[in-house]
């Protein structure tokens, strides 16, 4: 049996968990699921639809919100009882964190961010996994020496596929929590500063600047174009670590991952850590003085030249074109 941790936020499903369920089904064994906290019981229908027969619900008065170490404890209790062949979860910050707690409790290896899994066929041979390194730019093939495989599934490596299954039957259990398990948990939250404008993650158009912009003043040209197109400003890490723009505008591996309809990258070289955050954009346009810059490989269209001349000219030309269209 494969046990899949379904992550949720106070009852709201984390969609990536459906990818983990889909990946689990491909291993050719029965699939069961677990949610931590009573709120998760509402997910029995969708979890069943994606192929889990049983939804185990870890219920406890202290489990009202995300409590990562307690999740690890609940998983441990269930693993010891049911002896699954593998425990899987989504390769998300929460999925990785909760399974790391399980792995630490059991002192067993964990393979994070896997593309592929093949379970061992006998007790003394290892499991085989292919996992992501360097933000998905390298694939590591590895052996995992442990009877129980603990692994997370890299986001967007599998499309969630419905199994058209009936609602999973709910089996509630009380995890054996200790006080230290529930010490760290979400105490409160706030909506963050939306600032009225379009947020990076939701923007349909992103105009992004890199080191080539030359300084915070140069970003006026980027802002103007972004405003004109109803889009958001993005930037590279060089820009945030130089203090030219706030970190919330950083696109990439350690910034925000985006997939807008249009991503225009000006003065950005295209380091793989930047590419990791924007390669799923529908149309990518590049403005760069150096035709050898790696970003050209990932772009759809490009202009070779100085952004300080091209962007103002582009802004003016778009204004002109929209005026003509209105007239």
């Amino acid at each position, binding site marked *: 049996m494969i046990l899949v941790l379904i992550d949720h936020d106070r009852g709201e499903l984390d969609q990536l968990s459906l990818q983990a369920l889909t990946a689990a089904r491909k291993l050719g064994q029965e699939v069961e699921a677990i949610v931590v906290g009573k709120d998760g019981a509402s997910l029995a229908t969708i979890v069943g639809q994606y192929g889990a027969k049983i939804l185990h619900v870890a219920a406890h008065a202290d489990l009202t919100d995300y409590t990562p170490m307690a999740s690890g404890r609940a998983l441990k209790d269930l693993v010891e009882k049911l002896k699954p062949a593998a425990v899987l979860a989504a390769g998300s910050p929460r999925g990785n964190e909760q399974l790391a707690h399980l792995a630490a409790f059991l002192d067993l290896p964990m393979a994070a961010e896997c593309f592929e899994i093949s379970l061992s066929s006998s007790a003394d041979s290892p499991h085989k996994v292919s996992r992501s390194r360097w*933000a998905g730019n390298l694939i590591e*093939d590895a*052996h995992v*020496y442990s009877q129980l495989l603990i692994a997370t599934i890299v986001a967007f490596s599998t499309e969630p596929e419905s199994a058209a299954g009936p609602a999973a039957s709910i089996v509630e259990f009380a995890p054996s929590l200790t006080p230290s398990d529930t010490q760290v948990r979400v105490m409160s939250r706030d909506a963050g500063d939306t600032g009225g404008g379009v947020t990076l993650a939701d923007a349909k158009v992103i105009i992004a600047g890199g080191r080539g912009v030359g300084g915070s003043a140069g970003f006026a040209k980027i802002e103007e174009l972004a405003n004109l197109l109803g889009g958001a400003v993005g930037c590279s890490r060089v820009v945030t670590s130089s203090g030219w723009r706030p970190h919330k505008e950083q696109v990439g591996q350690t910034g925000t991952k985006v997939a807008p309809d249009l991503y225009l990258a000006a003065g950005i070289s295209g380091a793989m850590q930047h590419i990791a955050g924007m390669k799923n954009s529908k149309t990518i346009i590049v403005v760069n003085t150096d035709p050898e810059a790696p970003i050209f490989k990932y772009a759809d269209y490009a202009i070779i030249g100085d952004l300080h001349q091209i962007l103002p000219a582009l802004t003016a030309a778009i204004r002109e074109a929209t005026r003509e269209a209105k007239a």
Partner: protein
Amino acid sequence: MDVLVCLKRVPLAGGTLILTPDSKDIETKHLGFGISPHEENAVEAGVQLVEQMGGTLTLLTLGPPDAEEQLRTQLAIGATRAILLETDGQEWDPQGTAAALVDAINAEETKFDLIIFGAESADSAGYQIHVRVAHALNRPIITNVKAMKIENGTLSCDRVVSAGREHYEAPLPAIITVRDGLNIPRYPSVPGRMQARKKPIDMKKMQAHVPKLEKLYLTVAPSKSTGAEILGKGVEAVPALVEILKKIGTI
């Protein structure tokens, strides 16, 4: 306030990755080395805490003897001292690394009030060494921290999620893992570099370790890219770009 930061020497790869002939590692002949951005934020956070509250900042790494270079750079921005657990250059798996870090921490006279990790390592990104260390030391751990403060022995931290910010608290001694954006790491100054040369680094040779997560080989992920259509050079190409924007429906 005694703070410990754990960091890892990694190649500074940005462009195309090239592998060694045995496909076990990245070819580093033409690459520099550094630490992950998250860990730069970890060191900066440690330096700031010691500036505000006094105390010491210790750095800890498991890696090849050359990792001294990364320790010296981080000592130059304000750490007090460093510990280097020397390997033969082979990467250790997360369990082995965590166990070695735990042994080193337990061997210290200083009982660190706060231990800071990066959220994940730049190269192997196992997302776990910190959690393992927290369990072994029986300490609370708050991960993916983007804002933090310490008041009356209580640590309060924010984690950024898609819907905003989550707030967490824990008593000291504790462990946190931090993310890029927590602060703006400073660059080492020339006097800082001079002082760093004389700061103590304790070296300890490690015995080879048998991994339970065993790296077999690496492959470079195929990129689906075909390359851009060049619209032209300079402002003369702008009208062509405007036509593209019309075609894709942006304007």
